């Protein structure tokens, strides 16, 4: 059999394979360019950028959990100005892989401003609208992604302005993911991605204090995989637009589960911290699986759950 074709076009985002690095788990490529061949990736998704620089939360910001970790980084980042002036040009020099820029805000207006600023930057493959960070909340204490109306509103504003494809990143901390996914689709999202982290906490019983200074944080890693997989499957069944799946992917088998459940591409997050070579093993594993089962194109794999 000829080599299987791993390339895929997701709403105009051309990927040479369906494997990307998750926002917040690869920085801006600088460090991992020493350990990975970033060119081999389907895409790189940057750490979420906000309109203004963010100091981030007090430490401790991370803690290990059984088969995973909690984080409450608090979106520490340099802000969009410095990002465009310095960080992004550097990243573009490090890789030919498409760069997807993740944006986050506290108000709809901040998302609008960020979208308008990024409209001037041609080299961006897409923007990922992070409306699901447990650390950015609206006035009522919820994330945008926890409410269908807010999801619809942000998506609509951003999609109508954006010159780049728009990926809306959803939260798993919801009662009905299908409803939220549809709200994003109706708002004009080109793609949805999920999941962001699950809210969680841990307590130190000796001091009776929370293990994270922020008290709560977001759970990621293999601990969340079955939960996340089910949400991706539900979301994929609720919308017609492509879905990007993530949550606890540690190997190619995990990645294939997401694709069979309906994900057009997969994202590797926390696994990078354990083994920066995970991406390579996942790409290779998908290719070998396709050979074994004589799958010529990813499209006959995506959503092929029997």
């Amino acid at each position: 059999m000829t080599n299987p074709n791993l390339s895929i076009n997701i709403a105009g985002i051309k990927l040479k394979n369906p494997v990307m690095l998750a926002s917040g788990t690869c920085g801006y490529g600088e460090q991992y360019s020493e350990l990975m061949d970033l060119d081999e990736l389907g895409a790189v998704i940057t750490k979420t950028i906000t309109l203004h620089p963010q100091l981030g939360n007090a430490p401790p910001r991370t803690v290990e959990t059984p088969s995973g970790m909690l984080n409450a980084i608090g979106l520490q980042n340099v802000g969009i100005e410095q990002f465009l002036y310095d960080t992004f040009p550097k990243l573009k020099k490090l890789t030919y892989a498409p760069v997807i820029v993740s944006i986050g805000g506290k108000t709809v207006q901040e998302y609008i401003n960020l979208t308008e600023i990024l409209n001037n930057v041609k080299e961006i493959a897409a923007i990922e609208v992070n409306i699901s960070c447990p650390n950015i909340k609206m006035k009522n204490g919820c994330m945008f992604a926890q409410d269908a109306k807010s999801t619809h509103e942000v998506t609509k504003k951003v999609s109508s302005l954006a010159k780049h494809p728009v990926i809306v990143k959803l939260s798993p901390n919801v009662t009905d993911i299908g409803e939220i996914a549809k709200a994003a689709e109706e708002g004009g999202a080109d793609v949805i991605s999920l999941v962001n982290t699950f809210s969680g906490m841990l307590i130190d019983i000796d001091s009776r204090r929370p293990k994270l200074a922020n008290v709560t944080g977001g759970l990621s890693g293999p601990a969340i995989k079955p939960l996340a997989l089910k949400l991706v499957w539900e979301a994929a069944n609720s919308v017609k637009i492509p879905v990007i799946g993530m949550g606890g992917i540690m190997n190619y088998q995990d990645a294939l589960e997401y694709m069979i459940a309906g994900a057009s591409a997969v994202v590797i997050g926390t696994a990078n911290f354990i083994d920066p070579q995970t991406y390579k093993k996942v790409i290779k594993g998908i290719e070998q699986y396709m050979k074994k089962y004589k799958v010529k194109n990813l499209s006959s794999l995506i959503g092929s759950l029997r």
Partner: protein
Amino acid sequence: MIQTKATINFNKKLNAKYYQMSLTCPSIAKGALPGQFIHVDVASKKVFLRRPFSIYKAGGRNIEILYKIIGAGTEALSEKKKNQTLDIIGPLGNGYKTEEINKNDKVVLVVGGTGIASLFFLANRLNSKKLFLIGAKTKTELVNIKELKDIGCNVKVATDDGSKGYKGFVSSLLKKTVKKEKISYIYACGPKPMLKEIARISKSHKIPCQVSLEEHMACGVGVCMGCAVKIKEKESFEYKRACKEGPVFNGQEVIWE
């Protein structure tokens, strides 16, 4: 920084809790500097993330680490055998700065617990006069003191229970020392409360001081922003990464909480 599979040459038990391990990894051994660390996948089902360990020795094709069992990760490490391999990333972080140190200077290195690892490496590379102050709970916790003497350190010990040397905290021993002698530089590695006290002493005696901080780490390479340390910045502060800008910081720049 590189990621490599390193072969274990030995994994030696030093006392009830302390171990010393040698690993073959020429590419890391070559460029490693005192204060830098490696991020180790201990390959155990009981732990998820990698674990950071200071480089204790580096020479030729090998590096060594010195560690204490405090949980599942270090426990798993202690069970590793000769000729097994470990996936490690390193050398990581910024080491101790030594440009200001001259041959005739008297430098004090202060350690608590496993802090001895990174400061042994530093002492080995310094050709000034070296006073090494070690703090421990009790005398049975003290390890590899002879090695320190062999590399020309004057070693003094403080134990909480007085079972060896000075009875009390190693920071009190430092205080007595700086009152008596002219010290040109202080390096310290150990638990945070100890480092905080040392930074305070160094400030009041106007002696420059570098400290190495053992923060909780996830990625270890600078991508996750998980290992934040509060550092003075103009009138305010900012969070720096212990794994990237650190783990060694100027003691007066750290905002101790």
